[in-house]
């Protein structure tokens, strides 16, 4: 018998046995590639092929910058894309074709729509980064200049460069505050791995996009961040909404925070009106078992009146907590 052929036969046997399909849970990563990364690559290629643009947020971008060579890799369970207004239709079309549907309603101040489908990771389509007050078009224009290519699941995807990523890490920490350990871990790693020069650029980006309060509040959630803020000359900020987010305040307190931070009387009145008379789609979510008329005329205003004092106390508490930490 030809020993070479015999060896090859044994190899093929082993290969075939080893090469049988391996089924993994959707959220369990391959050693280097995860299902989420593959979905991100596929969606990105389709969006680009149809003339749209997108930037991958978090996910592989955070993993490669903040967790590279780490024994505990950063796992993602969904795909986050930043998309300009002009590409929203293309993105929606791509997602629809793949069986995704937009879930839930967007409350005022939300910066993303979640698309879901059974069997695949959810996709959060962002039109801005939470905590940045500049209009989405200006945010896209600025962040577009801070793109870099990243190899994700074997393909090249646009992600944020280091300064823009640093900005995102900080404002993301403000968005989710202390309750989500992972955002704090991301921040702590960013503070170790990203140098001051890039943080300076992040600070300027935050200033340009009217997000300095959220940026500063995020940094000051951890001691190393407070030290960095001092080095960068960023004083503590007194933003109600940043404090409410960082301290994971209730929805009521956050609404009140928006009123408090609103600039000008008409902006404040807008928020008060939204709090008492939110859009119909939001009311349906909040009061699914009530006829809309009853919900609008009776239940909602009554709720606002009764819960405002508690919300005010809560907001006062979270603002004090943020000031004390700074």
């Amino acid at each position, binding site marked *: 018998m030809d020993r070479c052929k015999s060896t090859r036969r044994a190899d093929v046997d082993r290969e075939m046995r080893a090469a049988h399909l391996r089924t993994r849970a959707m959220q369990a990563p391959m050693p280097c590639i995860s299902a989420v990364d593959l979905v991100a690559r*596929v969606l990105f290629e389709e969006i680009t092929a149809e003339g749209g643009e997108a930037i991958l947020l978090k996910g592989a971008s955070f993993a490669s910058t903040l967790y590279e060579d780490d024994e505990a890799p950063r796992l993602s369970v969904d795909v986050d894309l930043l998309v300009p207004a002009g590409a929203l239709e293309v993105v929606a079309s791509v997602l629809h074709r793949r069986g995704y549907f937009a879930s839930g309603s967007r409350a005022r101040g939300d910066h993303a729509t979640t698309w879901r489908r059974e069997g695949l990771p959810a996709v959060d389509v962002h039109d801005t980064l939470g905590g940045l007050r500049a209009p989405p078009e200006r945010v896209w224009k600025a962040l577009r200049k801070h793109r870099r290519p990243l190899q994700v699941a074997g393909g090249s995807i646009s992600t944020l460069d280091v300064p823009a990523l640093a900005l995102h890490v900080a404002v993301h920490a403000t968005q989710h505050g202390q309750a989500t350990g992972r955002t704090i871990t991301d921040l702590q790693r960013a503070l170790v791995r990203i140098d001051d020069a890039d943080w300076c650029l992040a600070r300027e980006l935050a200033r340009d996009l009217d997000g300095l309060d959220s940026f500063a509040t995020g940094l000051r959630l951890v001691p190393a961040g407070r030290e960095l803020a001092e080095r960068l000359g960023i004083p503590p900020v007194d933003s109600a909404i940043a404090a409410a987010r960082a301290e994971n305040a209730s929805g009521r307190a956050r609404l009140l925070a928006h009123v408090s931070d609103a600039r000008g009387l008409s902006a404040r009145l807008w928020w008060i009106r939204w709090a008492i008379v939110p859009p119909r789609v939001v009311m349906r979510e909040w009061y699914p078992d009530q006829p809309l008329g009853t919900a609008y005329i009776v239940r909602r205003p009554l709720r606002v009146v009764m819960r405002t004092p508690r919300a005010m106390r809560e907001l006062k508490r979270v603002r004090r907590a943020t000031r004390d930490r700074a």
Partner: protein
Amino acid sequence: MKTLSLRQQDLDWRQIGDEIVALDARGAAYLGLRGSGAVLWRLLADSATWDEIVTALVETYEIDRTRAAEDVGRFLAILNERGLLVS
């Protein structure tokens, strides 16, 4: 002769290095294939007959046709079980 191929809907895959990674949205399964599995997968992606698939294995790995046919049969049975095959 009947042609075999991979399901088109709800199945995405990419070649990454020597490996194929595939996402079966219907079965909520994430799959990885290497070596001869990857060779067979690529053939099915372009559609092939049974004869063509077996011949490819024989020629790539220089094995006898009988064993190749058995191996291909096992591989296709797995794909069929998972609803990934159409003919």
